[in-house]
Structure formats: C-alpha cells, structure tokens
C-alpha cells in the first residue's frame, strides 16, 4: 500500500463540506501563495513546530536534541533552525506540546483506521471525509488510494484543491469524489504566477473539467486586498464562470490566524493587509455588479 505525509487529521470538521466530517490534511503544496495561512503545509517533508508561548522551560528538549539545535536561554528553550534536522526527538519528550512535529508518514490503512472511527457520525449527519492540504492531489497514488478506499466505504468524499494537478490524475479524482472545494486565486496567468509561484493554465483546464463533470463544485476564492480584488480580475472571473452558468463564489477574506505558525516555523509573517468590514463590503458589491454573488466561508 502507498504512503504519504499527513500533517493533521481533524475529526469533527464542520466547514469542509456537509455534515460532520473528518478532514485529512496532506503535507506539501506545489503553490506558494503569499498569504498562505498554513505555512507548515507547504513542504512535503515533516517539520518541527515550536510554540514559544507554551514552553515552560523544563529543558527536556535540550536533553533530547541530537543535533545541538536546542539550548536554554533565560529559562526558556531556544531553537537554532540552522542546526535543526526536523528529527522530532524533542517533540517526543516535550511535556507541553510546545514542540510538535508537523507531518507523519502514514500508510493508507493507517489513515483509514482513523477515518473509520467516526463513520457513524458521518452517516447520522450526512457528512463524510474531506481531503485537504497543502494540496491533496500532490499526494499522488497515496491520495488516489485514500479517495478510492473512502468511496468503497460508502462515504461522501470531498476534495479541497487548488487545481494544480496533472490532468490525468485530476480526471481520475473527478470520477470518484462527490464534492470539490476548488480554489481560484487569479485569472491573469502572470499575476497568478507572481502571487503563487505558478501560472494558472493547468488550474483553469482542471476547473473547466470539474465544472463540466457534473460533480458538485464549490468555487472558492481567497480574497486578498489589492492582490486579487481588482475590477479587472473580478470581470474576468465573472466572464469565465458565467459561461458555465455559475454565478456564486465562496470567498475567504484574508486573515492573520496563521501568524503564530509562521513564528513556530521561524518564518517571517507575510505582509498581507486585512480588510476593514467596510472595504470588504465594497469588494463584495464589486462582485455583485458583475453578477457574482459572494458567500463568506
């Protein structure tokens, strides 16, 4: 059976599709969006997170560290990222979970064992399982095996995707999964590349395929002040989705909830602005003028 890196399995997940769900977060993403709120999901390998506010200075990490990356400084633990090899020895002994590994290599069967635990909750709530990330489709065969196994269990399967996925693989997923939470970031290829590191040609081809597949597709857009909310981009979106008879998108306005995770990875927090309620309202009206209604998720 195939294996892959999973960085979280969230039981009682309620916003990633209908009902009570379990969401599997696969680690690794081919895009690197400026505003990413889950920075620990970008790399495909396990990484150490260090939440300084939870450290009580017991020193267990220093004793466990095999690479000399951990030391004590004024009664609190310190982490030298240059030295750290993300081996996770400190996370195993940290009593407060201030240090924690993000990402674990798991087999399909191991993931399925966790998913099966809440099967009755899915059934009673009209829920199911969701695969997210990172970018779940980047999990390759591991991801396809998980989707297939879930479909065989009779569960409702949702895929939360950015659409940057080889077409052949994407078409396989379209045949199996029930619901796609499909992100769209920008309509202009150059702008898209500037914001995410990749252009949008492949994404738009997959989006077309999804919209024509007959599967349920929720079009989702991370909305970033000054980055993708221009008149021009919104016009292009309305035109594109209008040809498929789609006039509603789900928007996710920029937020700062990932801030502590950037700190935990010793990464600088990206300088992305946030909307004031009034500014957000103006942007939503801009969508509405072009015939796209918006729902905040």
């Amino acid at each position, binding site marked *: 059976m195939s294996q892959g890196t999973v960085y979280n399995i*969230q039981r*009682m997940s309620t916003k990633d599709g209908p*009902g009570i769900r379990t969401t599997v977060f696969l680690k690794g993403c081919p895009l690197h969006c400026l505003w990413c709120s889950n920075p620990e999901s970008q790399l495909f390998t396990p990484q150490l997170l260090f939440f300084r506010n*939870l450290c009580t200075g017991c020193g267990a990490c220093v004793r466990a560290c095999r690479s000399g990356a951990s030391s004590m400084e004024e009664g609190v633990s310190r982490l030298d990222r240059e030295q750290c090899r993300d081996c996770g020895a400190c996370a195993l002994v940290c009593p407060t979970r201030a240090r924690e590994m993000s990402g674990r290599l798991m087999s399909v069967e191991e993931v399925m064992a966790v998913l099966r635990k*809440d099967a009755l909750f899915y059934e009673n709530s009209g829920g199911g399982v969701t695969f997210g990330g990172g970018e779940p489709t980047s999990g390759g065969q591991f991801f396809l095996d998980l989707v297939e196994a879930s479909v065989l269990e009779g569960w409702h399967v949702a895929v939360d995707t950015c659409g940057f996925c080889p077409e052949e693989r994407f078409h396989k997923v379209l045949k199996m999964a029930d619901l796609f939470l499909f992100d769209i970031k920008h309509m202009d290829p150059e702008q898209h590349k500037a914001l995410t590191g990749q252009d949008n040609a492949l994404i738009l081809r997959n989006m077309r395929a999804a919209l024509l597949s007959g599967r349920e597709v929720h079009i989702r857009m991370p909305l970033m002040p000054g980055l993708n909310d221009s008149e021009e981009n919104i016009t292009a979106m309305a035109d594109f989705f209008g040809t498929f008879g789609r006039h509603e998108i789900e928007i*996710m306005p920029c*937020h700062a*909830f990932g801030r502590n995770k950037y700190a935990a990875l010793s990464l600088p927090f990206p300088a992305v602005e946030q909307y004031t309620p009034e500014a957000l309202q103006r942007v939503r009206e801009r969508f509405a003028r072009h015939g796209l209604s918006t729902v905040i998720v």
Partner: protein
Amino acid sequence: MQLAKMTSLGEMKIPQETEELLEKVYKKWKNRTCIALNNKMYKDKYGVNPAQYSKAGMYYDNVSVASGSGIADYPKALNKGLRWVVDDLKQRLRDCPTTLDNKERHDLYRAMIVAVEAVIAHSHRYAELAEKTAEAETDPKNKAELLEIAEICRRVPEYPARNFREAIQSFWFVHLAIEVEQMACATSPGRYGQYMYPFYKKDIEEGKLTREQVITLLKFQWIKHMELGEYQGGSYAKTLSGHTGQTITIGGVDADGRDASTELEELLLETQIRMRGIQPTLTLLYHPKLKPSYLNKVVECIRGGSGQPQILNNTVVIERNLARFAQYKDGITLEDARNCGNYGCVSTGICGKGSFITQEDQPCLAKVVELLLNNGKDPSTKKVVGVETGDPREFKDFEELYGACKEQLRHLFTISRHHSDLSQMARLQVVPSVFRSVMYDGCIEKGMCEEAGGTRYPQVNPIMTAGVDAANSLLAIKHLVFDTKKITMDQLLEALKANFEGYEDIRKMCFEAPKHGNDYPEIEAFVQRFYHDVDEIHSSIGPDCFGYRTPLDAYSLSYHNYFGSLMGALPTGRKAGVALTDGSVSAMPGTDHEGITALIKSGAEAIDTVRYGANHFNVKFLPSALEGPQGARNLIALIKTYCDYGGSHIQFNCVSSDTLQHAQDNPQEYKDLVVRVAGFSAYFTRLDRGVQNEIIKRTEYAG
C-alpha cells in the same frame, strides 16, 4: 449555618429572627436526626463508629437530609381532585380489618387524610386572601383578576381542573405541598408537557388562551420553582450547590411506543429560552421519532447556553426499567416502562408510580485509589479506614495491584451498603413522609408509606462519583510504573505525598499518561473493565433494603468538588484539594485531545448504561461551532450518535468567554480546547494572543 444558606441562586439573605429560629431548631434536633440514629444503629450492630469513614471522604452520608425523590402522580390531582382522594382514603380506612397486623395501615390512612385536608385548606387560605383583597380593591380590572384567583383557589386542587389556568394552579399547590413536607432534591414534575396538554389543547382550540398567554403563565411558574430552596446543612450545600433538581421531562414515547412530544413542550422550551432559569430544569427523552421542527426548538434552547435541555436516551431508559424491575415481585408492564421520566439530576424511574431513596451513602471511587496506595490508611485523618492490602511497592505486576484495588472497592461498598440499609430504618422512624405517599401510586393500595417501599416501583439510587479519576489513576500507574517503567512506585508515592511539590516532571508524566476520553481502544477497554468490575462488586454485596439488586447511579452532582476537597494528590496529575472530574464519563479537564466525536464515543461506551442506573456526561462547545441550520443538524447528529453508541445522558454546555480568558492565562489546562477560526479549526492555546483576544470577544454570546 452560613454554608447551609447557599441556594441554587446564590447566598440566601435571612432575617436575624429567622436565623435565631433556625439555630434553635438546629440545637433541638442536633442528636435526634436520622444521621445520628443511623450512626448509632451502625455502631450497635457492627461495633464501629461509622463517622470515621465519612470524615475520611470515603462516602457522603446523605441520610442527614430528606429522602424521597421522584415524580408524583400529578394527573391524579388534576383529573380527579384531592377531595376524591380523601373519600377514597376514608373508604379504605373503613374497609381495613381492625386486626393488630393492620395497625400501621390504619395509622397511615388516618395521617394521609389529615395531610390531604391540610393541602386543600392551604389553597382555601389563598382564596380567602384574594377575596378579602378584592373587597378593598377599587380598580375593576384588578378586582376581577383577584376574584378569578379566588375562584381558582377554591376549585383546585380539591376538585378536577377545568382549564389550563386551573390545571397550572392545581399542579403548583400539589408540587409545593410535596416540597414543603420534605424539601428533598429532585422532586420532579415529570412529563408536565404531556399531562397538562389536554387542558392546553382545549383552551387553545376554544380560543380561551393564546400561546403567548400560556408562556406568561409558564414564566410565573418558572419563578415559583426558583423560590424553593433547601437548607440542610453545610456539607449538603457543598455537595449539591443548592441544586433543587425540579426536572420536567419532555419527549419520550407513549404507552404504545409512539412519539409522545407535544406542542406545549415546545412552549416549555420557549419559556426556558426566554427565562434562562436554573429551575425547573428540562430533560429531553431523545428517540429517533421526534419531529425535526421539535428538535430544532431543542437545539435553539441548547444554543442559548443554559445547558438545557439535557438529553437522556429513551431507548436505554426503557431497557433499564425493564431490566431493573423484572426482578421485582410483580415485575413491570411495558406500558409502565415506557412511562419513564428523569427523577432529577440524571437518574430515571417510572412516572407517578415510583420514587427513589436518596439517603444512600454516596461513595467516592477515587478514594479507593488513595487507600490502595496507602495500605488502607487515610492520609488526611491518619486512620486505617480501608483494607490493609499491603505495601504498594511490593505489587509484582499491575494485575496484583488491580486485585488489591478490587478488595478496597468491596470494603467501601460493604460499609456504605450496611450503613445505607440501616439509614432507611432510621428515616422510617424519624421522618416518614405522608403526603408524598398519597401522591405516589402504590402506597395507598399497599397501605405502606414511601420510605417502607410503598410505591409500585420503589428504588434505591446509590450515587457513585469519581470513577474516571480512579480509572485514570490506575491507567497512569499501569503506564508509568509497570508498562514503560518510567518511574518506580516509590518515586510516584513520594511525589504524591509531596503533592508534586518539587516533582513537577513526575506530575507532567502523570498528566500526560493515557486518559479516558480519546477513543483509544485499549484505554477505553480498561475504563469499561473498571466500571464493569465496580458494578459486579457492588452487586455482590447483596440486595438493597427493598430486597433487590440495586443499579449504581454514576454521576457527580457537585460531589466531585466536595470529595476533591478531602483528597490528596492523584496519579492522574491532579493536585490535592482540587475538584475531581465532573460527571461519570466526562474527560478529566484538559486531557481529551482527539475532539468531540472521540469524546462522545468514549463517553457513551464507558458504562453499561442499562446495567447501571445512570451515567453522566458533560460536553463543552463553542456556540460558533454549531451555527446555522447545518450546525443544528450536526448537533442533533452528535446526540443521535451518542445514543446509537448506548450513552444514557449528555449535556452540552457552551464555552463562555470567561473560559477562554482562563485558557489564555493557563494554557496548560486547555490543551484540548479547539476553536473555529475563519475556515479552519485550531487549538486555542496555539493561536496568537491577538487572535485569541478576538475570539474571546466573539464568544460573548448573548446571556
């Protein structure tokens, strides 16, 4: 005396003269109470003063307080009237053979007639006062209202109620009389929304009342329930927090198994939404046939944040009734088993035909672990009150230790059972309840008062607390001392003795050790094994004072707080004096990290809820997690799945902004707290402080 003035509404203000009177009453009764007699009887019979056991915190001797809790036959007063009851009693007295073996019966009927006449006279005093006040009243509207009050109080509860207004008054006079005779916790109105429904339906159909007027009347009733308070001593105040447990049961099925819920019950929910009161409390008997619109009203009430209604699994309650009463001489009918209700707190029984004896001693299971680790000696009182099961350092393996634990359990249950059974004799002698016996079916027919087992389905409810603390303690010892050998028994004992002072590392290990509530199969299997053994040992002590096997009621009230104050540190990582775990299948605070579905599965399966008399499960949630129609459906799905897994009781409490504030200040205690932030769930303690502040602000839900 000061503590005794605590009620469910807070500290009670009592005038000086009343306080003096209470002091006089206290002195007069000091050595003549049930508990005094009970302890003397125990010493005479077993040669030991039992006070040492309760002082050590092995059990709470509830015998000092009034007994008799359950659901009276209110429909009898509403539909037949108390005059009919007096006539019936007079006839029975005449028919009773005048032989010496019938002396008790004669006395009881005579006393009952006096009591029922007194209740009727009490209502007439209200009528007289209203008439007198009306005479002096000049405002015609007020005058008419007073005369209506007078008419109603002349009519009920003496004669059958003719409309909703009379029915609500009749109900209240009867309920008040029962409470006044013996102010006992858990005197419950039962299926109020069902026996009151015919009166409601008639008035609504005839256009005599509007729904809004009904809600106004119910609001008045809510206030009356809150006026009642119990004054039964300091430790009682501590263990019950002044809770009066007047519980209205809604939902459930009728005698033929059909959905019994009514429109009036939706108005009870609406009244609770508007009143946000703490008395009466509402309990839903959940079953899959309840209408979606009705369930939505339930969800609306739960979301209001008062924790109401709490949920009981109707299927489990019926099975429990069938199992429990099958052993009784006359068995039980299916119809009676279905006519069940919540007696108060979380325990269950038959409406109108049964009551339970609360004066059972109420054992603390966590104490068993403390005695086990101290070779039977209580560390605080320094007395050997348990079994000398040997130096804990000498146990070769976990099974040997577990065997010793079972010996301690057997000892605890034996003492509490002996003490409890004698307490019933003491109560029968000191404070038999007469009017209550009139109102609980079976007592009149058998000519026996409630305390003697006169009701059709009498039951004893031994409330048992802190099972999760005991099981978690044993799991920690197994994991740390025997399986991983991270520490020795000696190190553990030293750390516990020092209340973990200077042993912070051991405390952390203890706290991190496997705990109930995470749906880890092997851990939950042990919790289930422990609860199974507890029940088996308790049953093996022998039958209760009525001669039957008594199911254990596993729930906490505020006992987890009371017993916690009497206990030293535990291998769970809990420090001395701190409250134990609430409920009986809830997770120890801060130790459930797999989310609410894992907690619900673990909680539902921990106890065999049919074999036991109750389980008790509190779940906390953030209001924002269950917003909107999908949120409502999810909440209902959580309830349904909990019931599918065989759980008996579940109560949802909203996490308040105060809790979040506390979590921000004490992140160690809230590792499990998951909050929903835009688009994803996150552990609260790992969020940026600014984001935390925002969520705290957002969580200040109305009320």
